[in-house]
């Protein structure tokens, strides 16, 4: 945590979350990112156990339950810190959210929302939409055999799409390793920086394709059950 001044006694805060002199809780800086909040480097491979242990430890430090008898100012800090901590944990715990967050931190701009299918899925998605329309029409008109035929076909498609999603996730995991490896290297090296940019760009693309695919799968499930 960055060194700063205690809001209460104005002495320099060197401890992690509490002022050494007056023992008041310190607000987590609004600038500090979720990784910093957990005292972690910006790496994408995170051990779930370590993260949980740290989350519990910080929860014990900040939770409003333990500030009931403190001043209003301290209660407000406790509430703010706990809310931030909970968001940070939720984000870092899930590998996809973690990657989205890191891409946003490193390369700015939020995840771009894809509205048209990725190029390599274009044909497949168009056909799928046709089949979905057909399924809805058959259901509405009570054409049982046609509906069942399309339902079976769509279920197959769904399985296929799910495998695609898994493939994307495995691609992501290998990019996680690449990223973590690059983070260990000297950032002043132009080649390292360039490779990082490529990795981030690649991750962002897979993340947005994956989100698109997941929405399609959810839609499918909502329609065909």
């Amino acid at each position, binding site marked *: 945590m960055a060194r700063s001044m205690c809001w209460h006694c104005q002495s320099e805060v060197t401890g992690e979350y509490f002022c050494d002199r007056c023992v008041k809780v310190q607000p987590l800086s609004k600038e500090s990112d979720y990784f910093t909040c957990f005292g972690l480097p910006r790496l994408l491979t995170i051990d779930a156990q370590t993260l949980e242990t740290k989350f*519990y430890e910080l929860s*014990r430090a900040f939770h409003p*339950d333990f500030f*009931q008898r403190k001043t209003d100012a301290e209660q407000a800090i406790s*509430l703010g810190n706990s*809310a931030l901590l*909970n*968001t940070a944990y*939720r984000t870092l715990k899930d590998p996809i959210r973690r990657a989205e967050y890191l891409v946003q931190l490193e390369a700015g701009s939020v995840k771009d929302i894809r509205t048209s299918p990725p190029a390599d899925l274009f044909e497949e998605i168009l056909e799928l939409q046709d089949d979905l329309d057909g399924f809805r029409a058959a259901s509405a008109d009570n054409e049982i055999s046609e509906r069942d035929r399309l339902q079976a076909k769509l279920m197959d498609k769904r399985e296929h799409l799910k495998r695609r999603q898994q493939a994307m996730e495995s691609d992501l995991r290998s990019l996680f390793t690449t990223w973590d490896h690059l983070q260990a290297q000297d950032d002043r090296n132009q080649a390292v920086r360039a490779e990082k940019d490529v990795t981030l760009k690649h991750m962002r693309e897979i993340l947005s394709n994956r989100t698109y695919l997941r929405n399609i799968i959810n839609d499918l499930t909502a329609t065909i059950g």
Partner: protein
Amino acid sequence: MARIFGIDLGTTNSLIAYMDGATPRVIPGRHERTMVPSVVALTDNGIIVGDPAKDYLVRGSERTVYSVKRFMGKGLADVAEELKYFPYRMTEQGGVIRIQLGEKSYSPPQISAMILKELKLRAEAYLGEDVSKVVITVPAYFNDSQRQATKDAGMIAGLEVLRIINEPTAASLAYGLQKRTQGRIAVFDLGGGTFDISILKLKNGIFEVLSTNGNTHLGGDDFDRAVADHLLEEIRGRHGIDVHDFPDTMQSVRLEAERAKIRLSDEQKTSVALDLPEGRGTFHSELTRDQLEALTKHLVEQTLAPCRSALQDAGLQPSDVDEVVLVGGSTRMPLVRCRVQDLFGKMPHSHLNPDEVVALGAAVQADILSGGIQDMLLLDVTPLSIGIETMGGVMSTLIRRNTTIPASAKEMFTTYVDGQTSVDIHILQGERELAKDNRSLARFQLKLPPLPAGVPRIEVTFLIDANGILNVTAKDVRTEKIQSIQVKPSYGLSDSEVERMIGESFKFAVEDLQARQFIEARTEAEAIMKATEKALRQGRQLITPDETETIKASLAALEAARTQGDHKAIRARIADVEKATHHLAEVLMDHSLKEALENKKLSELT
């Protein structure tokens, strides 16, 4: 610092508990009973609460309020379907239900406040100390309006509500304290009016809620109603009477249905007896457990889907759950136990009294807040997603359900038209796509400086605190100024209404207390008179004729006080009777007839 108490404000019964050293204990009232029936009656002598009020259900049903928890944080339209089941009259004002009692109408938080005050008095009498700070439990699936209404009830009762805590998680605290459990547990909580399922991970004193689900309109009341409807049908068939026309008898049927249901948890078959209205004789019938289960099967089934959703949200299979804990009186039903066991594939348990465990857990949370217990920490979640209405009537979710609380989300607002000076914001709670399908929580208006479109930037922070209650603040990003906003709750009392009700509550406190003391004394006098007469019949030959005369005289004096005196006079005459019967009680006990005087307990007489 004053001690903090834990309160279970239940649909059917309420309890208050405290930490006695390292052990949570429920505070008993007279006759050692720990539960205060959540019933409030308006009598000719004023308002009474609890056991004595319960007697009025069958002789003044239109002025006796029960199950008020069902109406907390609700508008009349929300409960339209079940209005016909309640004998008291309800109206609506400002999105809040009002219950008519005589000349006056009361909001559900005001009625709940009367129950809370009763609990406060009970604890004060028992411990001889002031009760001012409390933790109150609510169903985990209670929405924001219902939680706020509960907090309002506490304020109206003159209590400082330090925390609103979820019932199933409170229960887990009581269990955790006792057994130091580790692993994943599911708490299945079926109470008088609500159902909750919560899945928790317990590790080194941290109680992390993974997911929660439920139904705030499913509980013992619904089971009683199913049985009562069956009995009403039978009465109509056999006696040609439509009991719906007789509100007091309707309540007798409801209460008898409840008692039969309870008996059928231990027995296979039970008999039912009811006095018919207008002296038209007595209705006798029999009910088997099979019949009960056929009548209520669909209700038990309704608990299973929320369990499956909770498991899914926690990312778990039923077999991942290490322990299933049962909470709430309705989990005593064998069918409930059986279905829960089927679903989770393991035997559920209720080592702690399912009626008391929530109050015990509330006392544990109270102790954590007062700095007593330091190694336990509950990390709860918000049961329902919170969002705002966006263009086209769609809900945009800001904080998803099952997010650990405290939780916050920020949203930036700007203008679409030059010189626009305000933005209307509608806050919603629920899981549906469209705003209209979700629960409206509140509306407020953001004030903006007149600037070109898109220039103003107001950052609004939505923060769900540790009580699961939403707080909204707004900040002008350009000026860094915090903007105060007036949030208008859709189904809640305004701040000024709560203020007024707190005032009224104090104003009537003295009158209410006198009425309460009088009615309690009178009820006890009646019970003592009955018991003493019975003892006299059984033990007359064991005492001298002089003694008999003394006892008779004391009884006559008590009867006179009961009809004419105030509560102090009645209490004094009760003491006289107890003194006069002291020897009689002894000799009766010597003759191992000791039940006779012990039976003066109100519970066994009514």
